[in-house]
């Protein structure tokens, strides 16, 4: 059962056209946790003066990763949808480096799943961004 769900989350995340457009992939999936990664791409630049990628691209990665974490939770049945997501941008991502996201679904109720996530580049100690959101359960 757990294996099926893992396969489902992986398949779903990689079948998403928008995730494909970003070249995103799933690094790891657990019981309510997920890790996703996105390569640096000049098309995602938000500020050409510095080469830093746009916050919207980081947002998309965090949203996808949070969704995968929800789907991997043992209490979650099937797919999910974002209710709200807040992203705090701590510092600019270093140009040229991949962005990794780590999400944890820390509580699931009958209707809502609560998720936290961080986005990192090659520096593990200082996050690029953090996220907190609510997702639909059993959608």
């Amino acid at each position, binding site marked *: 059962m757990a294996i099926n769900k893992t396969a489902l989350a992986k398949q779903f995340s990689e079948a998403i*056209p928008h995730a494909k457009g970003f070249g995103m992939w799933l690094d790891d999936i657990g019981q309510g946790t997920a890790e996703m990664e996105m390569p640096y791409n000049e*098309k995602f630049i938000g500020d050409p003066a510095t080469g830093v990628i746009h916050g919207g691209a980081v947002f998309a990665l965090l949203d996808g990763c949070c*969704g995968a974490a929800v789907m991997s939770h043992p209490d979650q049945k099937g797919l999910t949808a974002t209710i709200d*997501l807040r992203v705090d941008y701590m510092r600019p991502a270093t140009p040229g480096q991949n962005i990794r996201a780590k999400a944890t679904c820390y509580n699931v109720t009958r209707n809502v799943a609560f998720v936290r996530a961080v986005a990192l580049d090659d520096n593990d100690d200082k996050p690029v961004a953090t996220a907190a959101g609510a997702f639909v359960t059993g959608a």
Partner: protein
Amino acid sequence: MATKRPEPVQVVKQRRDAALAALLASIPYIQFLGIQFDRRGDELTAVMPYHEKLVGNPMLPALHGGATAAFLEVAAVIELGWTGLWKSVETGTLTPEAIAQGDLIKIPKTIDFSVDYLRSGLPRDAYARARVNRSGRRYASVYVEAWQDNRSRIFAQATGHFLMPDSDVKA
């Protein structure tokens, strides 16, 4: 002693459009998502034409939450940049030639962005309008809402805080 004659409309329009185009061209991510802007005077409407690469759930199909968020954030940043640019465009301090030279436009940096997903995004064109609710020397607070077929049925809304470019002090 006659008052100064108003400029011909096409001169004004050309200058405004050039300023907007320069602002948009400065962000590659806008081109990646295919976002365009409609200008009526100083009012901007962001338009994100439907494209397959924006889909998040292929079974419904629905727009990806990340695409929606990015669309809202682009609409908010451009509105903020445009509001800041407007005065110098109108007074003529910023000429089309100067704009073409580039390097004059500084983009505000997002501090945080919070999105409410009210309905699933349909496989249709999406529109957004942003409102700068507070614009100080250092920070700005911007509200933005997006809709598709019906203006009154908002499918996503967001609030973001931005660091103004001139106050950009190195930490």
